[in-house]
């Protein structure tokens, strides 16, 4: 009797926990579902009270209208260009720097590395204004270079890869050195192929950060043809304040690439978060 009672109590608790966590998860994704559904609604289905979840008819042409109202295609290309260049650039610069920190013995290595780590603590607001000035002096304001070049190195990425490189056994490289390989070839042909998980984590994190970046693009870009999706969407908001069908279609477009990458490479996102957690 007593045991049965405890058992049923445990089951009730389990059910309650399930209800709680599912309610929370549903509340968390409800805004996305609301965005998706609004993006294909007729304006008549949008301004109704009480709100209707499902559209009476699916208006996929809202997306076409959004593309006509603003050059989202161009914004997309800009975003992809900037995000991909920065990601590839960081993979190269960070692995090179990480290799130097992990494998080459030179004077001042430790000091330099700690200076590097220390700068991760500096909030970007402090460096934002002078970085803008540097770009202004170079005549790079309002160009792709302004969006790309400052992102071509990363203390976090260097740190992440260095930690990974340190776990790779040295014997492999030493055999290659004996065979007369240069340092660059060792990095390229031995270390890089062994570091795919770390490189994937860095790539995904950098891509996400750059694709979602807003403030930097807002500061350094004025021309419409250089705007990224995020910047274009924010400006779209000012022009079509209550055209929720178009605004939600634009939002779907601005979130889609990251969501797709996220669903297919979730473990790297999780790993990146945990790694950035460990670094502190």
């Amino acid at each position, binding site marked *: 009797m007593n045991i049965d009672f405890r058992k049923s109590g445990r089951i009730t608790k389990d059910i309650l926990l399930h209800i709680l966590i599912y309610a929370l998860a549903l509340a968390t994704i409800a805004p996305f579902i*609301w965005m998706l559904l609004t993006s294909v609604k007729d304006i008549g289905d949008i301004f109704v009270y009480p709100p209707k979840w499902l559209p009476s008819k699916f208006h996929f042409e809202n997306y076409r209208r959004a593309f006509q109202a603003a050059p989202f295609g161009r914004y997309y290309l800009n975003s992809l260009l900037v995000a991909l260049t920065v990601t590839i650039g960081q993979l190269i610069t960070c692995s090179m720097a990480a290799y130097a920190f992990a494998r080459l013995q030179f*004077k001042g290595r430790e000091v330099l590395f700690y200076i590097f780590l220390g700068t991760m603590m500096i909030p970007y607001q*402090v460096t934002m204004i002078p970085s803008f000035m540097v770009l202004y002096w170079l005549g790079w304001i309002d160009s792709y270079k302004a969006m790309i070049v400052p992102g071509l*190195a990363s203390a976090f990425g260097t740190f992440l890869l260095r930690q990974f490189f340190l776990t790779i056994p040295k014997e492999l490289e030493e055999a290659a050195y004996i065979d007369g390989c240069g340092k660059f070839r060792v990095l390229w042909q031995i270390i890089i192929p062994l570091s795919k998980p770390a490189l994937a984590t860095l790539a995904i994190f950098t891509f996400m950060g750059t694709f*979602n970046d807003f403030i930097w693009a*807002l500061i350094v870009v004025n021309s419409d043809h250089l705007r990224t999706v995020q910047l274009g969407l924010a400006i779209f908001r000012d022009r079509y304040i209550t055209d929720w069908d178009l*605004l939600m279609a634009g939002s779907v477009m601005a979130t889609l690439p990251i969501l797709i990458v996220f669903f297919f490479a979730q473990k790297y996102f999780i790993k990146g978060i945990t790694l950035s957690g460990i670094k502190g």
Partner: protein
Amino acid sequence: MPSKNAGIGKTTVIRRDRNSKKNILPALGFLSPTLVIFCTFVLFPVFFSFYLSFHKWNMFSSGQEFIGLANYRRLFSDPEFWMVLKNTFIYTIGTVPLNMVISLLTAIILNRQIAGKRFLRTAIFTPVVISPVAAALIWRWIYDPNFGLLNYLMNLVGLPAVNWLNEPKAAMIALIIMGVWKTYGTNMVLFSAGLQGIPDHYYEAAEIDGAGWWSKFWNITMPMLTPTTFFIMIMSMISSFQVFDIVYVLTSGGPLGATKVMVFYIYENAFKFFEMGYASAVAYVFFAILAVLTVFQVKFMQTRAGYEAV
């Protein structure tokens, strides 16, 4: 084979030591791209913005005029600066504890036998990865006073409609709700990692002693999670202090400056009013506040939990 390998290892080690000086050039080669970017966009800016904070400069005039501490004096006597500081604190105090409670609760539940864990984790983590601009736009629509989802749901449970984004107090609450929604997935992942690090036999031993759920939570989970909790607290605080994108899109700092936060104020002064010197001074004060708060928390945790942080 093994002995041969060992021999190779030894000779290379000796050679490397002798070559420590020679390595400088290749090392510089490997580091140069990173160093160039780093010096131009991190190191130089850190010093230059400090220098700028003692100058008056609108960026277009040829020279910077030295004005000593005038920017700092102006900042401390500017009521708008104090309002912005207060808003930033309200946002931080509003988001960080709420965020931590929800994310810890979620992590604890997901650490148990739950059906559909993968789906739940994905759902909870999704807001973290999407763009803040799009996220804020979705919430603008949810907060719409007449046709928004939130007012409708509140009406269902008998609460009065709120003009979320147009009343100062409501706008801050709206910003906090959205801020927690956007970020609690990160902390859920970090707490989950922390929970997985607690050995099962601690709980098993406690169960043998007849410990209940609360006792296990309070005497095992919480103490074992102290490093994680501490880290999450500092990181959440720092990122709440730096909030900008969602403010820009959700409320633009309004109404009546009720959601104008520190970074928004820096942005406005630097890139709308071109007060580069003043904005740099604000940025440095902001940096100092963050640093002091972090140090204070480290000290507090060390004395409270006897835990060596960092």
